[in-house]
């Protein structure tokens, strides 16, 4: 009899996990309360950038993930809008330059070929860039894709390999035998399995509460503006140094110092629309867009790309990024329980890390060696006593 696994959550991480499990020959059921890519994975941008990753285990993971992306369109037999167009982080002030010099040095040590370029060279690569940009990073290996396509392609490929998709099927509880999870309760149905993988992003802690297990993943709201379709104006993805600073900042509980967390992240879709982000705010599970945030994003966007003042936005949307206290995802078993695993907490790195997270989790859930050290991503890292900070 084959090994049965339930994957809960049809976003990038869950769809990817379901695909690799099906590829390994497991009997997979992918369930989602709503639909594939109906949460965070359907409300994000499109960058697969390595130079935005925190040097350390997350970056090492992202490097492996990036190599999977290179052949993923063939493997999944789908157009993912994958494009290795390069990426830059633009710098406006001497202070930012100093911080980015350090970051670039650490990235180079980790094997990333990113380098600092002058403002002039940045404008040669990105002609629409403002004269106020004093320098930039540049790496030609950064890439982009369409996260919706990736989610659907993984889910469809999993289905072709025999996985069953149960959409509009919220998990209402766990089926438990002592300290072992043996399945999940859906609305009108019990589904049994040898392993359950929770890949529900910001919603993962809500389900784990039922087992009295605490998982420190917090929704961090990010807003993105969508423009009308334009001819090609953006060459690869562009972030600002302020975006990186906000992304790496662990400021939960100190939001008053910077209520919006504005930093520029901009990319152009295949249809020609620009996606312009973004913000980082702790606002619970609230997904309303905020006109004040729109204005602040417009401000940084026009400052970096003056021509954008003459471009129309046609919609705004928000997504809830799964924030963790140390900025690293959670990949691995749930401590103290058998048969249950978590793959969540990727914040803004879910697109870049989806392929490798799925591969790792497929191995881990089947009791196989994932081939990389996943201890830095273990859930029990949060159970160690926290050193009190500052005040």
């Amino acid at each position: 009899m084959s090994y049965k696994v339930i994957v809960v959550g049809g976003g990038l991480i869950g769809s990817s996990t379901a695909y690799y499990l099906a590829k390994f020959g497991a009997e997979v059921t992918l369930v989602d309360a709503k639909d594939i890519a109906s949460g965070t994975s359907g409300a994000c941008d499109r960058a697969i950038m390595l130079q935005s990753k925190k040097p350390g285990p997350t970056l090492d993971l992202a490097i492996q993930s990036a190599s999977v992306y290179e052949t993923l369109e063939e493997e999944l037999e789908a157009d993912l809008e994958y494009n290795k167009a390069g990426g830059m982080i633009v710098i406006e002030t001497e202070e930012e330059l100093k911080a980015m010099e350090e970051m670039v040095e650490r990235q180079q040590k980790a094997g990333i070929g990113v380098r600092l370029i002058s403002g002039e060279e940045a404008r040669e690569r990105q002609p629409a860039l403002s004269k106020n940009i004093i320098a930039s990073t540049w790496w030609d290996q950064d890439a982009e894709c369409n996260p919706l396509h990736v989610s659907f392609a993984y889910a469809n490929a999993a289905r072709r390999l025999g996985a069953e998709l149960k959409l509009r099927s919220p998990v209402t509880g766990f089926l438990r035998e002592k300290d072992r999870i043996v399945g999940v309760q859906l609305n009108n149905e019990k589904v049994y399995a040898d392993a359950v993988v929770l890949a529900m992003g910001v919603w993962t802690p809500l389900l784990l509460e039922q087992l009295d297990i605490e998982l420190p993943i917090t929704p961090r709201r990010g807003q993105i503006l969508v423009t009308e379709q334009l001819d090609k104006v953006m060459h690869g993805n562009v972030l600002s140094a302020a975006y990186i600073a906000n992304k790496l900042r662990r400021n939960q509980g100190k939001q008053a110092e910077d209520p919006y967390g504005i930093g520029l992240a901009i990319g152009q879709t295949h249809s020609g629309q620009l996606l312009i982000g973004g913000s980082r705010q702790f606002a619970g599970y609230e997904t309303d867009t905020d006109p004040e945030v729109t204005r602040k994003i417009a401000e940084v966007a026009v400052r970096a790309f003056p021509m954008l003042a003459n471009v129309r936005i046609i919609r705004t949307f928000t997504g809830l990024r799964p924030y963790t206290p140390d900025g690293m995802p959670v990949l691995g078993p749930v401590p103290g329980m058998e048969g249950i695993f978590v793959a969540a907490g990727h914040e803004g790195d879910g697109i870049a890390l989806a392929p490798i997270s799925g591969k790792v989790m497929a191995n881990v859930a089947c009791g196989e060696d994932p081939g990389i050290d996943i201890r830095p991503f273990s859930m029990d890292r949060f159970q160690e006593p926290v050193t009190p900070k500052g005040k």
Partner: protein
Amino acid sequence: MSDVIICRCEGVCLNQITEAIDQGASSVPGIKKRVRVGMGYCQGRVCQPVVRQILESELKEDSKTKPPLQRAQSPVRPVLLGDILKE
């Protein structure tokens, strides 16, 4: 009939919408995410009622529950970034 254009902004035909529903889309946002219906200039103001009708007729089994609509996402109409900054 199947090649009738339903969403003119993005050039999406009827058969693409029914395919999306076959694939598991059960809401207007679900169809939108699969085939770009309503992602264009008018933001679904023109096609959403038609898309919803198609959805309701395809998802006969649970006609009691209306499929979720795409909620309006600001701005209400296209606006220049430069004008947002003037406010």
